[in-house]
């Protein structure tokens, strides 16, 4: 089966898009990859290594592997700062145009693979947590970036190391008030792994995790959680608010077990475990492609029946997904593309 005359258009150069591009390239399929931002690697580029000292299987380093392999790949044409402007399907191909700061371009592709990813929940949309107002309230993504760039945790108020910190899980996820009846699937993973990492670097740090339910992730999860519980305090309650304390501390107000009285906890730093929301471009893409959004605003990968012919998807464009799951789905999508192209070429 020779697919080397085929070309696939990939939207998005994050972990899913890169993995798919490489997997297609290995089959000899040409790829044109359109990425909106200035760099490849997507959100994962912001994430830190969480080895403490043993690898916690977050997969953040895998994007470097992908980028390294991409540098050696031929037949992958990457356009940065580019956006899809128009796309239409004739009898056997997609015809598309894209824009770029220094002039756009146009092309033809036999299949389209959506890998446009997600948007982190805007922590400002939960005003009770005072994100952007109190300096020592961070999001999980802010913390990832700090650790990625410096390897340290810093209180923004005075640039010193905190002595205590607390994570609030499910910020923006599993939230009926916001009409977000879905779990973001990654926040327990990143919060607990970062908590372990910080504890490994600073054994004196007091770390609390406010949660509803701890979700499983990775292999050997039971052993992981047992180990984590030894060094992290878990409180099953989601704080109603964060307020300012003395010396730039943050104060969490939460319900006690009985559900009747409220309790307070002060810490140097608050970390909001923000969830994965639909990509901002999803509505536009949906309209452009005639591909309906699901009830949560994602572009569903399944069932195939509701998806226009020749369009495939990988990663968080279809719903919250971990790095490992995005990689698996990129392989799945490329397998579907290969089957689609070979069927088409045999007709």
């Amino acid at each position, binding site marked *: *089966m020779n697919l080397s005359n085929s070309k696939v258009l990939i939207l998005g150069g994050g972990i899913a898009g890169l993995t798919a591009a490489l997997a297609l390239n*290995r*089959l000899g399929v040409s790829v044109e990859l359109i990425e909106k931002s200035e760099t490849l690697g997507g959100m994962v580029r912001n*994430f*830190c*290594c969480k*080895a403490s*000292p*043993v*690898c916690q*299987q*977050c*997969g*953040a*380093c*895998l*994007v*470097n*592997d992908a980028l*390294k392999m991409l540098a*050696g790949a031929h037949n992958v044409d990457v356009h940065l700062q580019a956006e899809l402007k128009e796309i239409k399907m004739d009898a056997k191909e997609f015809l598309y145009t894209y824009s770029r700061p220094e002039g756009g371009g146009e092309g033809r592709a036999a299949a389209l693979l959506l890998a446009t990813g997600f948007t982190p929940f805007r922590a400002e949309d939960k005003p009770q947590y005072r994100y952007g107002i109190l300096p020592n309230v961070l999001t999980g993504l802010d913390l990832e970036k700090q650790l*990625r*760039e*410096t*390897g340290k945790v810093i209180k923004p108020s005075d640039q010193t190391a905190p002595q205590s910190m607390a994570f609030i899980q499910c910020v923006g996820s*599993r939230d*009926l008030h916001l009409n977000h*009846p*879905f*779990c973001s*699937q990654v926040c327990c993973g990143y919060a607990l792994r970062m908590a372990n990492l910080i504890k490994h670097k600073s054994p004196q740090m007091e770390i609390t995790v406010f949660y509803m*339910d*701890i*979700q*499983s*992730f*990775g*292999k*050997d*999860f*039971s*052993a992981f*959680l047992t180990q984590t519980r030894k060094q992290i305090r*878990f409180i*099953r309650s989601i704080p109603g608010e964060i307020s300012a304390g003395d010396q730039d501390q943050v104060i969490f107000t939460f319900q006690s*077990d009985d559900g009747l009285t409220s309790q307070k906890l002060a810490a140097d730093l608050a970390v909001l475990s923000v969830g994965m929301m639909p990509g901002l471009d999803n509505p536009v893409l949906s309209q452009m492609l005639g591909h309906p959004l699901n009830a949560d605003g994602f572009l569903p990968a*399944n069932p*195939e029946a509701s998806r226009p012919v020749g369009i495939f998807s990988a990663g968080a464009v279809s*719903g919250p997904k971990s790095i*490992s799951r995005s*990689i*698996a*789905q990129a*392989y*799945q999508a*490329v*397998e579907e593309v*290969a089957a689609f192209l*070979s*069927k088409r070429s045999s007709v």
Partner: protein
Amino acid sequence: MISLAEVQKIPKVLIFGNGPTAQETAGQLLDLGYEIIGINPAAAFSKDISCPAIESSPGPVNSDQWGTLANNPRYVLFNQTALQAIEGFAGEFQVRLIKDRKEWTETVGAIVLAPELMSAGRFEDYALTPSSQIMTLEELNAVVCSSGKGIQGETEKEARLKGLTSQTYVAFLIGLRAEGNVLDMARTLSLAQEIRTKYQSQVCVFCRNVKVAEEGLERLYQACRDQGVLFFKFDDVGPEMIDSGEKVTLHFTDTVLRQPFELTPDLLIPDSVHSLPEDLQGLTVSARINTDGNGYLQPANIHLLPQASNRGGIFLAGPGKGPLLPRTGLEEAKAAALMVHHFFEGETLENQQREVTVDKGLCTICLTCLRFCPHQAIGWTHRIFIHPLACQRCGICASECPMDAIQIAGYADQEVEAKLAALKQKWQEAEGIQPKIVVFGCQRSAGVAWEEVQSSRFKVQGQFDFISLPCAGKLDPDFVLKALAMEADGVLILACPEENCKSIHGNTYAHGRFEEIRDYAEETGFDPGRIRFEYLSSNMVWKLKEVIDDFMGRLNESSN
């Protein structure tokens, strides 16, 4: 090494499994044009009995398409057949099979292990004994979700289900005595909803954590709550179970009301124990296919994502890797099919093209290489051979070989020595710049971080040079000693973090050799502080900078 041109890839794939994942993998690979041997340990494929709420994605399993695929002349299926042993190498495995006491061998190019798990009620952990009050999650799922699908022998359980009324109590126990999982939770939620709406029974779910990290499950959980299913969450082992001999009663303190309650459910459903079938556990040992801490397929190593095993040509898909939703199994089936397709038709990866040689004159067939190879790529007849499709070019064997008989192109002793000689030359030209440090590191982790450090504006006082290794496991003690002998002030060794080595143990072997060299240095009166070992991943640029700074400082201190 046998050259790539000499080995063949038998264009035939063996798929082992007894359920939807195996079927889906077969279907996809037939579509891609492969010849398939299906090995099913059971008499027939287990049916996909997902409830509507967690319906699997459409695939050949659920449609009439499967019938067509099963009749494909390229597909041969053996039911009730055991996989005895896997011998040989990627591209040409000899697989020993046994059916009705008849043994035979098939030769295939690649293997996909796509087993279902053995699932049983968690009776022992809850101290329960089977009785008419208790039904396992699997049994209940089969009765509820297969009604009309004609599964035999379920009539007695069906009758018990039909006896449920609005006056009866149904209790689920989930994740209380062992960590829960998304499969048991998805089943519990859909069954709870079904029983609640169909029979109006009082349904209570006793659990530790509601596992909803899958598409649609939070919605289902909310729907259950809206319909009046009660959830009791515990931070410990949950209700005490008291068996009166006739019935089991649950005693617990309500977490919200702080009051003691007791409940004698009419139907009690414990969650499940899922394990890899025993014969397959045996096979993973004999074929040296690594498993995780729970005995499921694929160890905790992100470099094996999505469906790779530690062995070339052997792929893993579906629940055998640990409990998952049926639809995830189907996703994995497709991903595995692609990996098989890559193996046969994909472009050869750059490192796979490197030549590995065994010097017949030096090799004493001591088999050290064979024992150390994490990929089972080495065999022997009257001489040692390295199989090019199984070999990942990590170089662990080359560094472990006591005779230095094994060399990898690009990283051969002579080539590394030439790099060191070039450094010496460079140092002589830049006379006076101190200290001089040689860094050995894995190209995949340290190499990437190194490039980023180089391209940033990071400046140090001193000479700092990187020699890339295919894996830290290719670090030869000789390299370190030679670097020191040519007046390097320090040697830094960088390896991937523990349990993050693409070659499984390359980083630990490197660490072991570092300790040896350091001990040796100490014994010979040499400052062991001049040799340093660090774990580093590709995205830890900050750490590389810190380590460089710190090491420079130390070396400057000790030289002053």
